[in-house]
């Protein structure tokens, strides 16, 4: 954990530890030099179909996620 004081802030933003650590991991990946950077980013592709169920039926076609970090705008900071 980079900073202990940061915990309440990202919790307040609705992030879980998983999201937080993913963003940190992505920052580290971005710090790599070129051949490794593209390789490591290419490796961590996120794709799956998630659908919520209600009353014994799946709700509308599930979302297939392409953007792993729903806080990607934060990464730029």
């Amino acid at each position, binding site marked *: 954990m980079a900073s*202990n004081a940061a915990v309440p802030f990202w919790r307040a933003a609705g992030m*879980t530890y998983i999201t937080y*650590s*993913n963003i940190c991991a992505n920052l580290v990946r971005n710090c790599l030099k070129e051949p490794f950077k593209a390789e490591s980013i290419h490796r961590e*592709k996120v794709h*799956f179909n998630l659908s*919520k169920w209600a009353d014994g039926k799946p709700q509308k076609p599930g979302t297939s996620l392409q953007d*792993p970090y729903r806080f990607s705008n934060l990464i730029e900071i």
Partner: protein
Amino acid sequence: MAMAVFRREGRRLLPSIAARPIAAIRSPLSSDQEEGLLGIRSISTQVVRNRMKSVKNIQKITKAMKMVAASKLRAVQGRAENSRGLWQPFTALLGDNPSIDVKKSVVVTLSSDKGLCGGINSTAVKVSRALYKLNSGPEKEVQFVVVGEKAKAIMFRDSKNDIVLSVTELNKNPLNYAQVSVLADDILKNVEFDALRIVYNKFHSVVAFLPTVSTVLSPEIIEKESEVGGKLGELDSYEIEGGETKGEILQNLAEFQFSCVMFNAVLENACSEMGARMSAMDSSSRNAGEMLDRLTLTYNRTRQASITTELIEIISGASALEAAK
């Protein structure tokens, strides 16, 4: 395929038999001659040849599938074995309590998207149902999170009202931690739980998979358990650095534990799937080979019989001519 042809032929023959009830009464011998194939001296080998061709094609396909599964297995096996290091420290710290009694359980059933891989999906579903029965009761609630197309199809039949989330197409890209952690995050955000029970097939060897349950407790439950003592009683002897409370640390830990355990479980399950597919395809190509042997034998026998018949006919015809001279 050939069976279908026979069945169709049979259906066409039936009314013709039924239409002549007198034939059966007359005499069994004469009716046999009438029902026998008229004007055909030898049996056509066409059907057997077609069947042999289709069996050969199926064998080719299953062999190819076995090869593909074997190479995929090799790729995923190493990663699955390496990922075991991720959950081991958590189990050392928090323990694994499959028997814990909580109000809200969520069973995460892992299965494959594709079939033809033996019984791994049905075992996972069976274990999940057993967990459902064990943990349901008055004031207790069990819900399912289903990963993979196959378990979804089976669970849909009898427990569709208890499914809260279903996830598919996880295996499209090679599995990686980022993907599984995002999935774990989504599951955490969408379900309320006291205990998550992850059901998957742990990979032992190419032919052995153990249906396994990993339990991840919610931070509140961990705290409660550690106060009571028991297995989690040692948790209080750890010092906490920084200004965080035990609750915060435990929440972070529980979330991270879930994503790590999920990562390992998904990999193990993928590995078991490949292993199961490999052995299933191996036995089916062996079966196809045996069937092919039997068919070849029948085919050759029929061929030989027809040749013999023809020879006999020629020889007897010739000898009749000789006798006439």
